């Protein structure tokens, strides 16, 4: 078990190094940050001097090694666009992204499971059919379009909800939260629906098909034959057995909710990490892009590692097979 985790951890470090190298070689195609940092009256000597000062004249591998060696010491450099340490900026933006991910993740999971169970149980009912058809929208419409549609309906036409931003926030130490104020809560509604809709439909469809599968099993028939209450059959026996694959998918989707909030954050000008990353691309802010990509890949690697380890505990067959093989 320990050897397995160690091996997985070593693989993860390798993955991180490769991701970083790929990211660094991509930066050259994103463009040249110098023109954004100097005005139009800058001369060639200014350009050359700045390039040397930033270390951009060094070969790619040298730049990458420099980045890694300071990143290991917790120094992610200074943002070209803001002239502040990247670590500070990331820490400042993280709460917005995490709160949004938390709310939309909770929405997606709770509504996804409820609708999934409902459409499985009443699968020929009108309401279930309607939900299934509507869920096609969630799967097929791009996030960008959903966001703009929601803004036009609820902000521009009805004027109920703010069209952008995070509302009023309250500071709790280094964390800023939008949960404590009315405007902060209102501001969360549209972005979290936009971000969570796809995940919700995904979870709903997964729960539904798993439920339908489980409900055909013999032990459900026996449970019914024993005269158990319908509710017990559905929720104690059927639902719990669908949750093994659902948990795995939810775990993996959690990563993408954080990482791919980029589009939602851009549409709603949500002051989180995704918006920071988009702005960094426009400005060719290499230190910010590098730190963000490393952060996201660390997160994905950790989640994958966690899910892999989780399999050991969730699925008894994995453990049995291994112990037999080693015996």
């Amino acid at each position, binding site marked *: 078990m320990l050897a397995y985790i160690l091996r997985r951890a070593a693989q993860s470090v390798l993955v991180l190094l490769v991701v970083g190298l790929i990211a660094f070689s991509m930066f050259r195609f994103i463009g040249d940050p110098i*023109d954004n940092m*100097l005005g139009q*009256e*800058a*001369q060639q000597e200014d350009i050359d001097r700045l390039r040397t000062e930033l270390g951009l004249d060094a070969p790619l591998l040298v730049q990458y090694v420099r980045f890694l060696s300071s990143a290991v010491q917790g120094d992610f450099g200074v943002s070209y666009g803001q*002239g502040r340490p990247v670590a500070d900026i990331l820490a400042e933006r993280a709460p917005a992204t995490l709160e949004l991910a938390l709310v939309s993740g909770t929405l997606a999971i709770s509504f996804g499971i409820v609708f999934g169970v409902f459409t499985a149980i009443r699968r020929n009912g009108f309401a279930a059919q309607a939900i299934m058809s509507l869920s096609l929208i969630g799967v097929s419409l791009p996030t960008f379009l959903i966001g*703009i549609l929601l803004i036009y309906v609820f902000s*521009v036409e009805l004027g109920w909800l703010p069209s952008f931003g995070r509302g*009023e926030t309250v500071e709790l130490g280094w964390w800023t939260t939008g949960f404590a*104020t009315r405007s902060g809560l209102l501001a969360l509604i549209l972005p979290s629906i936009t971000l969570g809709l796809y995940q919700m439909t995904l979870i709903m469809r997964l729960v539904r098909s798993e439920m339908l599968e489980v409900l055909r099993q013999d032990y459900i028939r026996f449970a019914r034959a024993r005269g158990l209450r319908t509710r017990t059959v559905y929720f104690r026996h059927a639902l719990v057995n669908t949750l093994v694959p659902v948990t795995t998918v939810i775990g993996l989707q959690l990563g993408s909710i954080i990482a791919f909030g980029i589009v939602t954050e851009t549409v709603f000008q949500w002051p989180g990490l995704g918006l920071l990353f988009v702005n960094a691309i426009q400005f060719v802010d290499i230190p910010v892009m590098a730190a963000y990509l490393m952060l996201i890949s660390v997160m994905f690697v950790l989640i994958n590692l966690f899910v892999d380890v989780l399999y050991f505990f969730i699925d008894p067959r994995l453990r049995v097979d291994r112990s037999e093989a080693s015996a």
Partner: protein
Amino acid sequence: MRQIGMATALCALMGTHAVAEEFKWAGTTDPQTLDPHAVNSAPVLGFLNNVYEGLVRRGKDMTIEPALATSWEPIGEGEGWRFKLREGVTFHDGAAFDAEDVQFSYERASGEAADTRSWFSPVASLEVVDPYTIDIKTNAPNPIFPDSIANWMIVDKGWAEANAAATPNKEEGNFATLNANGTGAFKVTAREPGLRTVLEPHDGWWGEAEHNITRAEFTPIQNPATAVAALLSGDVDFINPVPIQDAARLASNPDVNVIQGIEARVIMLGFGHEAAELKYTGDAGKPNPFQDAKVRQAVAHAVNVPAILQTIMRGNAEPASQLVSPAMRGYSEANAARPAYDVEAAKALLAEAGYPDGFSFGLKCPNNRYLNDEAVCQGVVSMLAQAGITAELDAMPVQNYWPELREDNFDMYLLGWSPGTFDAEHPLRFLASTPNAEKKLGSWNFGGYSNARIDEMLPIIQSEIDDTKRQAMLDEAAEILQDEMAYVPLYVQPLVWGVRSNVEMTQRPDNFFILRWVTVN
């Protein structure tokens, strides 16, 4: 937004209604620094014009008017300029303003680390005569010097030194990157880079307030659709710019006004004058036709500028005849006519130049620098095709574009130029002079256009005190550039601002948003 909550709570306590003078606006770019000498770019200087002040400033019609200097006069026969400073001015932190701050700001803004130092290349020295008089000596007579320093902002010496910000630092940042202490009508009370900046009136401001703003908040919104929605829903009172395709729709909305004007920026086509051979398409390696003025004139006749303006710019721009717009000082009235759209003339010129069957070449174009830039280039490609020349368009983000141009990777390219000094001399220096790194000339003349007469006239124009003689030379330069068609000026880029109908404001052609001209009704 924390402060809003407090302000609203306060109003509720006092039993009044919502604060009418609260003003919010959005733009696409956040100023990357609050240091007025660290970055010479329009988003930074435009924003800081509300916070810092220079010796002189520009009025609603772009004319130079007194700010921290009350008057100025030339010294002797063009030795320099003497500025009388305004007395009784205080910085936001309460410190008094005097000649020492001007001297400090000169050293700060012209030093090695400053991005603004090109403004001071004509300056030999700055001398303090008395606490409210300074002399700026120039290397040569310089008639437009006061015009050229409207964005040179004065920083308090004591404040900068006490906070270890005596020199700007754009790589690492320093105290002045995030904090500001100017003499302007507004002070910065909160700053979260990339998210929001809050301004409040400076109580000790020397001027008479024309505005009725008690608090203003700026939020950068990059996504145009989000900005339009924010304006329509009233979450912001003003956005700049309005996407051109949305201008008509917004104008028809009773809650919103669209303010249109003409910017200082001229959009033009440039050529690889120096390149002996074409670099792109099947004709790569063949002699470069654009070295022939007739071919360049043919291009000018082939491009249907009115059609571009009508379809792509939706009637929001004006055609351009020269490198500066009519609003600039030194604009040449004598050369106000631009080549007519005439495909037959273009074909005749091409035949005369030895290309009756046309040729093909590569056109480079940015796709996120100017309004609808890529669409304009596509239009140019199809119009040139009608005259028999085939352009292969390569459009790219501006971050990749300038490096390509600097590497000479083009046969023809699109460029926009806004003269920082609002004077016709500016594009001559940057776009039309033979490139010379030592003399700092022609640094944006990517094609390497060279004309001995223009090179000869430029230093004379720069030091000519007599306006009539100066204009005569500017006219001559404009005529040469038009005859040789060194660049093909297409149009002057429009300014399209969107504002709630209860707000009044003034739009300045340099696209600077001046908060002290805003009234919320």
